[in-house]
């Protein structure tokens, strides 16, 4: 496909690998925030071909992985109701809540449907005026304009049988939380290109200032990821910390302003629990009070559900880059995509799942020492 194939060119990738090797003189740990980038890195084997001195830490940027257990349990509860058509993006169906997932709700007779777009759910609501149609509105900033539009259109069309279960998360507060952690080893960040295509790059300048770490807005094809890494390394080697945009064909400084206005209208900032990470202040969006009539939590009385997460896996250490997934004792044994112990094993973009899918041959623990 145009704009994808050109950015997969192995020969140009070779040049970027060579250039990264040429400019790297020290050890650097770089976090790709976004799960889409993790997927590209592992799927193409980029991490195997980088200089040993460059360590990639896979960040928490997978909305499926970080949706908190309590929200999944709310979804399961709503989807189990006989009057409900529960609509979700495909990859949420396999995420386990407390003891079951949406597939299992479906097997017990729940009407759970996979949709490609939130607008498909709005259309279902119009087609089934006698049913309650609920859309599971998860995602980062990239998905928010679509989810907001679904609510906006439902309001405009006077739909009383449509509602959304919202669990939106935001990238900048997550970067802030990671960069300010006393145990963080991250020297620089690849910021998520598609999030920035909506929000612009202006949110990231203050983070660069505050933490003194380079942030490079990066795309998703192999050449994009390599260029993001190259730019971070060049800055680090020069002792600089700047905001750069390595995905300029898609991302502008201002972002998509009509989309931002719609988000501002429909959502408001809230504190958000991240599965496997904990509470990050002001790191999410919820429906603004103007749209409370479309809030599935209120409509179905599930706002009281709050499932605590107990601790059995080491995903937290994985997300901080303190260990690689294959250094966890449970990895590939008691914890697999079939039976995930932690959220990072659930989505194919979760760090552990990506490792399991593609890197199981690396049974030797990876050295992550510094120096």
């Amino acid at each position, binding site marked *: *496909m145009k704009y994808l194939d050109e950015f*997969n060119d*192995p020969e140009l990738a070779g040049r970027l690998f060579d250039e990264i090797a040429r400019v790297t003189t020290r050890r650097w740990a770089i976090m790709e925030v976004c799960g*889409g980038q993790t997927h590209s890195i592992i*799927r*193409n*084997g980029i991490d195997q*071909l980088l200089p040993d001195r460059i360590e990639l830490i896979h960040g928490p940027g997978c*909305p*499926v992985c970080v949706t908190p*257990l309590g929200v999944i349990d709310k979804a399961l509860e709503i989807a189990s109701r006989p009057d409900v058509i529960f609509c979700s*993006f*495909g*990859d949420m169906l396999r995420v*386990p809540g*407390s*003891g079951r*997932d949406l597939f299992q709700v479906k*097997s017990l007779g729940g009407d759970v*449907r*996979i949709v*490609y777009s939130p607008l*498909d759910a709005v259309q279902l609501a119009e087609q089934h005026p006698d049913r309650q149609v609920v859309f599971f509105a998860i995602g980062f900033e990239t998905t928010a304009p679509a989810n907001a539009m679904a609510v906006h259109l439902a309001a405009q069309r006077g739909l009383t049988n449509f509602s959304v279960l919202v669990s939106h998360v*935001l990238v900048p*507060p997550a970067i802030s939380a990671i960069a*300010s*952690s006393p*145990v*963080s080893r991250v020297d620089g960040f690849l910021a998520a290109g598609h999030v920035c295509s909506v929000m612009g790059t202006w*949110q990231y300048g*203050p*983070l660069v200032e*505050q933490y003194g770490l380079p942030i490079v807005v990066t795309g998703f094809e192999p050449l994009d990821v390599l260029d993001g890494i190259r730019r971070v390394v060049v800055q680090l080697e020069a002792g600089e910390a700047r905001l750069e945009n390595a995905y300029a064909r898609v991302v502008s400084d201002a972002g998509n302003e009509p989309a931002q206005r719609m988000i501002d209208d429909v959502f408001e*900032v809230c504190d958000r629990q*991240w*599965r496997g*990470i904990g509470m*990050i*202040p*002001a*790191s999410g969006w919820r429906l603004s009070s103007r749209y409370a009539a479309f809030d599935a939590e209120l409509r179905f009385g599930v706002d009281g559900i709050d499932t605590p*997460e107990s*601790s*059995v896996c080491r*995903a*937290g250490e994985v*997300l*901080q880059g303190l260990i690689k997934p294959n250094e966890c004792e449970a990895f590939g044994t008691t914890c697999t*995509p*079939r*039976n*995930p*112990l*932690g959220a990072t094993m659930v*989505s*194919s973009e979760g760090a552990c799942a990506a490792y*399991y899918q593609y*890197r*199981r*041959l690396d049974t030797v623990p990876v050295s992550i020492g510094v120096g």
Partner: protein
Amino acid sequence: MNVTDAQPDSAPDFENWSCPLPLRSHDRVVIGHGGGGKLSAELIEHLFLPAFGRVEGAEMHDAATLTLTGSAGGRLAFSTDSYVVRPLFFPGGCIGDLAVNGTINDVAMSGAVPIALSAGFIVEEGLELATLGTVAERMGDAARAAGVPIVTGDTKVVDAGLADGLYVNTAGVGVIPEGVDIRPSRATPGDVVIVSGPIGLHGVAVMSQREGLEFGTEIRSDSAALHGLVAAMLAACADVHVLRDPTRGGLAASLCEIAASACVGVEYDEASLPVPAEVAAACSFLGLDPMHIANEGKLVAFVAAADVDDVMAAMLSHEHGREARVVGRVVDGHPGVVVARTRLGATRVVDLPLGEQLPRIC
């Protein structure tokens, strides 16, 4: 609220980052148990085989091999398959021709010459007779085109609301020629892996019609009977080691099953895979892997390196093998594991898909 307002003292407790899920097990059948991936394999291994009993010397294959004793002698291939495709009609075919071609292919993957089919129908009350009639005509056409008659059948009707309109089961038998020994465990280091043509066409054609995912495409299902292609390959080289038609679970599932059965390592080159542009595009926007998408008119063959030229020549001159390609090889290392060589030259493990293919947003 500005995002940088977060107070340092309320930062998350990174020392205790964890994520905690109970082990997951299924006490009911979920849709993925029919997806041809890991869940399907678990069902066979842990539920059906213990109940049925294992047959001595039998191998998990598309068709069972039955050795006839006494004066008749010879070997039969025997296979059955049920078809529950939605919608019933899709670009390039319908449930009827799919049921005929699919079972012919299962029989042919043991090298057998298919000789007869059965057809069983589970029909939902209320289905239009014209629909059933069209399906039956397409089955007849497919069977006649393949030269494999439908010789017995059965029909049951279930209450409205069950059976999605129509389910079809077909079974087939075939005769395995003297000297032919095709089964997964014959994959041997040094073998070359051949794919008979472009992958992913059937799955993408069906997906394009599915509620919630609809998209426009010129892609048509590749549904086709492959016994003629197999016969041509065997005429060129009787010692083909393994054949499989990569249906549900796609080429990845077939390679994983063969690697596991034979306990050998399989390696393929992503750059060699015959992925049509439209299949690649559909996979891109849905977040799927072409290696996991179903085919209904393709086969993957494992042959000794010395026989590759003969087999490839036979395939390339057959209508269903014109776009055949060598995509990989059997290696000494990593027994039981399939490894892809990426376009950039790195490697990664390819796993059996879990169950259903889910479109991703991330």
